[in-house]
């Protein structure tokens, strides 16, 4: 009987063989053909821990640190470990509702999965941290505290210079070719951005093996792939933080900017933009809220007017017009012009503030008196220079001079997003006047009006050119980088000297003396400093804005540019206060205070009183103020509501209302951008 079925052994053998071949084919696919499992396994078991180096510190010219690294704490959550925890008391400590709690946990799971920790509340406030630290053992291992270094600013100043640090977004990730990773922090503006590579240092990476419960069990391959973190390097700057703080004080309740530069080096001593903000507002967990409120503020505190504000320079441009005419050889310093109160060379007379005879008998006198006729005339002389064959060429030459002075071009300062101002092209006039224009058409350029705009930084740089008698260094903040090597070429552009004229030193001296006269006996007397020869120039710039759909002439901008001491210049300053009227009224005294503080390193009590007076004067267009106040009351309302809610949820101890960390408050100031700003 069995014999009959012997052939069936082969069927069974075949069955076994086929089954094993199926297994082997499947293994072939699993182990050799697909690569995803390798990655999945890495993802499962290897965690990449990034060791963040401390960011470099920034020092001022007296080696005081203007920003520091301090530790802040993030509350982290591990979603899988939440069972059985007293989440209600956690809600109470954080001042959130249990719905919000759930939302955040779900958010954390969506972001990082339930087996990995995510930030539950970032950059805890001091009170919350203290409360949590005492109680954290009750919430472990579902919650734990993780330290993270953040920036802090002991002087609460120089926000616009330093910039801020923030989490990278996907755009940056793409742009940097994924050098950064989600959750990394980097400098987003100011020096933090420009010197990011130096300040950030080098990240270290540690590969660690973890088990199925996400516990670290050792190092991956004995640290073969690890790299060591290198701390960020420090920056030494030209900034004098006390002068900077003074400049910011002076600009309180005003819109405007102050820039102070050391002429011999191009090093920026102070750069303030009003209104400004406390840089500490943009660290910690309120960064986003504060940022968005500042964005909505009509006074635009985030807008750095010193490099982005573009204003018609007004009379402050006159010394430059003189330089061009001298360099082209169309006038000599002895050149005089008879002005009877207005310039009549063109169809429309240009008014001059002086009518007495001889107030423009030579260059020095004309400068001291700021004679409109004189400078309109020499502008025309320069443009209509017979050597240059026609107005177009003459204007192009004039424009070339202005550009070489740094007007209408970006200077290249070491903070990002500088604006270039405006020196119009011949193409512009050709389009506007259909090719039919001459030196009379834009004669206003000679007195700093018309198609001409400059930033306060550019104006300060012009003062450097005059102070240096014909050259400048690109304005910059950073003097040196600690532990610099040959590879650090980032400071090279600032070591290059820009020669802009061929005029002799004697002639420069005459221009300087003319400016000294302005301060000693002319319109700029307000900027005088005891015992120091100051050379300066006031400016009053007409400007327009669109209010409720109508183009309206607004109150003039107040300019003052100067340098001191005249014989051996140490500081050059440009000040603008928007819509503040005559240059001498506000800008002049502010420039004087800044120079005095820098040169003498101190101010007398009387002068401090003057600082207070300026600080407390509010100069703001009514329309901006109204809008600002509306926003402010909205904000107060919001904060009040928040406090009430927290008190309601905290009714166990109603006696201790929750304190809120510093929040950005719009303190009734506003901003108007120079010309043609749209106000809805």
């Amino acid at each position: 009987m069995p014999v009959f079925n012997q052939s069936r052994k082969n069927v069974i053998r075949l069955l076994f063989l086929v089954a094993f071949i199926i297994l082997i084919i499947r293994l072939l696919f699993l182990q050799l053909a697909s690569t995803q499992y390798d990655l999945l396994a890495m993802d499962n078991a290897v965690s990449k821990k990034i060791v963040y180096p401390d960011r470099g510190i920034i020092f001022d010219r007296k080696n005081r640190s203007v920003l520091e690294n301090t530790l802040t704490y993030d509350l982290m959550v591990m979603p899988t470990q939440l069972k059985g925890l007293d989440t209600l008391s956690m809600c109470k400590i954080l001042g959130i509702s249990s719905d919000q709690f759930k939302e955040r946990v779900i958010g954390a799971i969506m972001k990082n999965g339930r087996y990995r920790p995510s930030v539950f509340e970032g950059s805890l406030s001091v009170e919350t941290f203290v409360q949590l630290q005492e109680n954290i053992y009750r919430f472990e291992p579902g919650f734990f505290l993780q330290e993270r270094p953040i920036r802090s600013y002991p002087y609460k100043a120089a926000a616009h210079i330093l910039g801020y640090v923030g989490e990278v977004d996907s755009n940056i990730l793409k742009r940097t070719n994924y050098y950064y990773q989600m959750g990394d922090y980097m400098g987003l503006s100011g020096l933090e951005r420009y010197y990011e590579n130096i300040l950030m240092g080098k990240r270290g990476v540690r590969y660690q093996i973890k088990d199925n419960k996400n516990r670290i069990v050792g190092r991956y391959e004995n640290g073969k792939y690890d790299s060591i973190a290198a701390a960020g390097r420090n920056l030494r700057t030209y900034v004098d933080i006390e002068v900077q703080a003074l400049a910011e004080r002076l600009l309180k309740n005003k819109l405007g900017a102050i820039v102070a530069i050391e002429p011999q080096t191009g090093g920026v001593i102070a750069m303030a933009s009003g209104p400004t903000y406390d840089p500490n507002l943009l660290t910690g967990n309120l960064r986003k809220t504060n940022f968005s409120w500042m964005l909505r503020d009509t006074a635009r505190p985030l807008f750095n007017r010193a490099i982005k504000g573009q204003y018609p320079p007004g009379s402050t441009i006159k010394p430059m017009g003189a330089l061009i005419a001298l360099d082209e050889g169309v006038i000599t310093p002895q050149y005089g012009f008879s002005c009877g109160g207005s310039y009549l060379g063109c169809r429309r007379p240009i008014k001059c503030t002086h009518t007495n005879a001889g107030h423009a008998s030579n260059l020095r006198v004309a400068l001291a008196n700021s004679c409109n006729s004189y400078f309109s005339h020499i502008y025309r002389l320069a443009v209509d220079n017979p050597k240059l064959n026609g107005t177009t060429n003459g204007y192009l030459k004039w424009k070339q001079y202005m550009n070489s002075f740094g007007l209408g071009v970006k200077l290249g300062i070491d903070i990002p997003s500088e604006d270039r101002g405006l020196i119009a092209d011949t193409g512009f006039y050709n389009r506007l006047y259909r090719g039919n224009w001459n030196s009379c058409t834009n004669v206003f350029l000679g007195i700093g009006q018309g198609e001409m705009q400059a930033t306060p930084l550019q104006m300060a740089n012009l003062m450097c050119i005059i102070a240096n008698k014909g050259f400048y260094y690109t304005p910059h903040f950073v003097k040196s980088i600690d532990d610099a090597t040959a590879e650090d070429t980032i400071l090279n552009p600032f070591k290059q000297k820009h020669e802009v004229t061929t005029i002799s030193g004697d002639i420069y001296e005459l221009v300087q003396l003319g400016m000294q006269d302005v301060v000693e006996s002319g319109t700029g007397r307000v900027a005088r400093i005891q015992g120091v020869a100051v050379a300066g120039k006031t400016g009053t710039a007409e400007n327009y804005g669109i209010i409720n759909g109508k183009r309206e002439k607004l109150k003039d901008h107040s300019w003052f540019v100067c340098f001191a001491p005249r014989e051996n210049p140490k500081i050059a300053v440009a000040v603008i206060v928007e819509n503040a009227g005559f240059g001498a009224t506000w800008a002049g005294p502010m420039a004087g205070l800044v120079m005095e503080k820098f040169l003498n390193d101190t101010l007398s009590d009387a002068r401090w009183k003057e600082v207070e007076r300026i600080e407390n004067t509010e100069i703001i267009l009514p329309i901006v103020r109204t809008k600002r106040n509306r926003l402010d009351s909205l904000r107060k309302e919001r904060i009040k509501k928040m406090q009430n809610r927290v008190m309601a949820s905290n009714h166990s101890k109603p006696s201790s209302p929750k304190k809120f960390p510093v929040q950005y408050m719009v303190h009734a100031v506003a901003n108007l951008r120079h010309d043609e700003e749209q106000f809805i």
Partner: protein
Amino acid sequence: MKNNSFDEIKGIDWTVVVVYAILVIMGIASIFATTFRDEDLVSGFLSFKTDYSRQLLYFLISMVLAGLVLLADSKFFTATANLFYFIGMVLLLLVFPFHTDVKGTQSIIRFSGFQLQPAELCKVFVNLALAKYLSTQDLNFSKLKSQIIASLIVLIPSAITIMQSETGLALVYFSFFLVMYREGLPSAILIIGFSAALLVILTLLIDQNILAALLTITALLFLYVVRRQLKRNKSILITTIIIWTACVGIQRFAVPYFFSDVLKPYQVQRIYSTVGKDFEVNTETMSEEDIKKMEDKKKAGNYNVKQSKIAIGSGGMWGKGLMKGTQTRYDFVPEQRTDFIFCTIGEGFGFLGSLFLLGLYLFLLMRLITMAERQRSSFSRSYIYGVASVFFFHIFINIGMTIGIIPVIGIPLPFMSYGGTALITFTVLLFIAIRLDADRQMILR
């Protein structure tokens, strides 16, 4: 008993013994690789508290039992086969009043520190009893009566095991149908069984109505092809209609009924997830506890297979080396010392290691068939075929499960998986075969 000693036992197939030893040692090494936690090696091995040392202990016990088996007279097994079968059934039934709940199974008896899983052990007794029955003189396996008796020998313990929630172990008994096939069970029965299984799988994969239409079209096509013969032989038509009715009946009524009323929802879900579909359970009729249990089981099953595939897949060609597999070292694969032990080989030694292990198993199976075929006694042949079938079933289902082509059915990998009862059972199964083979010239009844 005769005066036997190892020297006198001629004809022991040492090759099989060597393969067996290699497999068990690989198993202990794998268990060591996954559970070793930097403890002191000497105390780790001697304390018998670590899994690898316990497995070593089970190995030693197995060796002693193997020795006893080899020393026993071959006739002992034929003589006591039915008795053992009876004892086995009693043990199986004893589980009901005396079982302890361990991880959802109700198949374990625990006494004074030892755990015994009769369902595991019973494979030996069933195999002996089946061999005994199949070697009955004048057995005519084409008769329905003998088919039924043979099936009952196998299916009764299977049914009892199912009642203990050990579906995997219960399914193992079906492997004995291979033995019956070898001993003359009409292949039609196997073909019908296979077709039924195919039909069930198709039912899962294809929409009910479409499948019904396909079946109808197939039947009509068949009738069209044989239309000439139809005129002479009406029975073809009747048979076709009966088969068609049966098929449609199974796919429309029997399978849905079986899935909704016989199987547990989590089992249904596992089956569905293996064919790559999501099964929507009608949760209205279920208690909340059952729903939760089902979801837990579903999650656990999917998670296990996913992690197991990651572990094996990340092994690549050469593997990461023993003890260097990150997945198996750090507990990413659940149950990795028992049912998912293959992951350790797959991750640690890669495709080549897996190939070596599979080759070893295939060699063992082929060798067993060769052994079976050289027996003079049909008892020995049936028994050895039974051993081969049981091993084959375990190996194929277990490895298939770890690489995701078969639903998660918890059965151990022979000689490798951690577990005393399993190792002892497989050892005894194999060594009885070796013992019988040593006496291959004898005719045993």
